[in-house]
């Protein structure tokens, strides 16, 4: 007996096909611009029509690339256990990546993040049971800029078990980030076999691949590290403002990414992801909590599924500046829509203020949001017809199911038991606890998690190996030694 999976869609099958047709025609006629030399060579060698640095692939070439891209990607945690099953309608969450600021729970204002914040973020992520993936979600300000991207991977490996979403900030970043990951996994081939990290690769809207992000795409393809395409049409600025045309542009950019990637490494894992935003026409900002942004995300996921590749979106985040009504509204609606759309990997938890600010407190609140969304897509479990009649016949005299074995047998699977930040107690209990608000209960939960220390210390010899790799990298960059204590 199959269970109905609750689902949301914004495009019919015919509409999806029309979107793809528009995207293909855009690539054939308008083409996409490539700043990266090796990528241009690959495209040229594959017979893609080049007009200077502008590539005009044919539909056949694009279809061929899609055919070699795997429909499912399994990402494993640090111990080698499957953690993310990206394919079909499976849904997983990971914290929104690469914030510029961290929200200080005491001042409730943003400040520059440090290495310690990043370690703590990994600890809290470990403590969030509904958030299956990790991410290098902060860029610490206490290490030199040249280390920005790779230092985060070191920290994530030292402080957490969950696989991570990450990305390069500089072209030379990939090699050492890969070395760190491979060291933990036990070699390059082992890492290819059991990926531990996903790398974001962003085309520049509209229809351009910068040298840096294109290089990341090539590096991923060649090493088998999953690449996550993060196309981000900004409606009304770098994209037409209408939702459908944003989906078309996202599709065209993503197709161009799949093409380059599959030429560089046929069969290498690639994710149809994105971070589109419909621009706020008053402030010129890029709201992730706007409902049109979410419509585009759902449409993108439908297109990705139709084309047979795993999907990703930045959803479940808010543009609020603190933990308030707007924060809960936007995070909740986004996460739920993403889950209902069957987006395989939803990056967002913890993130505020247009993807610029991470909050550990928001992360533990979002853990509840994610739990709710994941429960929602499980839908109504199938029991046998007539069961209610039997049960009611047995209990109608007693009047209560509380002591009935059926309740004991089912309530744990049937009910999502919320964490401490969701208040289901009485008014009196709440008052007696000092009347905590979202900030207070979230902060208490964060403190509870942090008090336990590093929940996932790494094996000592591996730890030494990683520190040696980073020390060598520092020397290569002319730095005197490790710039901060990675085990604060």
């Amino acid at each position, binding site marked *: 007996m199959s269970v109905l999976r609750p689902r949301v869609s914004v495009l019919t099958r015919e509409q999806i096909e029309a979107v793809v047709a528009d995207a293909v025609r855009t690539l054939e006629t308008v083409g996409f611009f490539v700043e990266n030399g090796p990528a241009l060579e690959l495209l040229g060698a594959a017979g893609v029509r080049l007009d200077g640095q502008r590539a005009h692939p044919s539909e056949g070439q694009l279809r061929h690339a899609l055919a070699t891209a795997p429909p499912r990607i399994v990402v494993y945690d640090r111990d080698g256990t499957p953690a993310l099953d990206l394919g079909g309608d499976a849904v997983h969450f990971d914290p929104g990546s690469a914030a510029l*600021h961290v929200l200080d729970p005491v001042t409730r204002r943003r400040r520059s993040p440090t290495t310690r914040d990043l370690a703590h973020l990994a600890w809290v992520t470990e403590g969030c049971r509904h958030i299956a993936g990790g991410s290098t979600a902060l860029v610490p300000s206490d290490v030199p800029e040249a280390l*920005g991207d790779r230092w985060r991977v070191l920290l994530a490996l030292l402080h957490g078990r969950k696989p991570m979403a990450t990305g390069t900030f500089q072209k030379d970043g990939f090699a050492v980030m890969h070395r760190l990951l491979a060291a933990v996994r036990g070699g390059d081939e082992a890492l290819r076999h059991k990926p531990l990290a996903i790398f974001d690769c962003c085309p520049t809207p509209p229809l351009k691949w910068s040298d840096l992000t294109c290089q990341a795409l090539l590096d991923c393809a060649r090493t088998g590290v999953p690449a996550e395409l993060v196309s981000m049409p900004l409606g009304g600025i770098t994209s037409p403002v209408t939702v459908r045309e944003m989906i078309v542009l996202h599709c065209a950019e993503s197709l161009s990414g799949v093409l380059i990637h599959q030429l560089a490494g046929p069969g290498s894992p690639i994710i149809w992801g994105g971070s589109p935003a419909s621009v706020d026409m008053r402030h*010129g900002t890029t709201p992730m909590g706007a409902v049109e942004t979410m419509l585009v995300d759902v449409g993108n996921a439908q297109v990705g599924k139709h084309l047979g590749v795993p999907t990703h979106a930045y959803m479940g985040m808010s543009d609020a500046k603190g933990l308030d009504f707007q924060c809960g509204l936007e995070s909740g609606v986004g996460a739920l829509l993403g889950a209902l759309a069957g987006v395989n990997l939803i990056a967002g938890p913890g993130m505020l203020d247009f993807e610029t600010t991470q909050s550990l407190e928001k992360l533990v609140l979002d853990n509840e949001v994610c739990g709710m969304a994941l429960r929602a897509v499980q839908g109504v479990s199938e029991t046998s017809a007539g069961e209610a009649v039997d049960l009611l016949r047995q209990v109608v005299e007693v009047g209560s199911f509380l002591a009935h074995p059926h309740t004991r047998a089912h309530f744990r699977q049937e009910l999502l038991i919320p964490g401490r930040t969701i208040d289901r107690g009485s008014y009196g209990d709440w008052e007696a606890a000092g009347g905590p608000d979202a900030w207070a209960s979230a902060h208490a939960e964060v403190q509870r998690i942090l008090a336990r220390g590093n929940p996932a210390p790494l094996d000592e010899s591996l730890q030494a190996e990683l520190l040696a790799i980073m020390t060598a990298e520092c020397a290569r960059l002319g730095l005197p030694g490790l710039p901060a204590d990675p085990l604060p």
Partner: protein
Amino acid sequence: MAHEELLAGLRQAVLDCDEPRAARLAREALDTGMPALRAIDGGLVPGIQEAGRLWDEGEFFLPELVGAAGAMKAAMAVLQPALAGGGSRELGRIVIGTVQGDIHDIGKSLVATLLAANGFAVSDEGADVPVERFVTRARELDADLVCASALLTTTMVQQRTLVEALRAAGLRARVMVGGAPVTPAWAAQIGAAGFADNAVAAVAVARGLVRS
């Protein structure tokens, strides 16, 4: 067309974001012997001021503000050569760009557009601009202000290098910085003269900086 009618038409063309109409009316104004300064002060400036007022009231949105600026620019291109003393209408000269290693240029372009619409002569150097390029352009143009945008934690430091390089070069240009990771504290720390966290505020800060 009578002069009054032409001026009203120019004002309306700006408000309607109609570039071809603004340029055509500017040409007509010159053809009928209207001084360029009159067309600007009596037509374009009231138009852009009204656009600003509508913006303040929440009636106008960015597409309209930028569109009005575009119409103003189209008309100015026609009128400028006819102005006695060439660039005498400029509020100040600005060099703007996104720092090296950073390709985020949307915010920078928005700032550049609004600065230009508000009467500054703006030289937009694009994105991924090396410090030396900022310095060279500032020298060439004898700029009043150099504006640098940075969106990455890893590229923000270029703003500091820029402040130091301009000082070392002995140029008079002051520096205004912005971008998502940039805070007033950072601006103060690196010795930048100005900071704004949105394009509308950037115009006000720029005005203050060139005046002082």
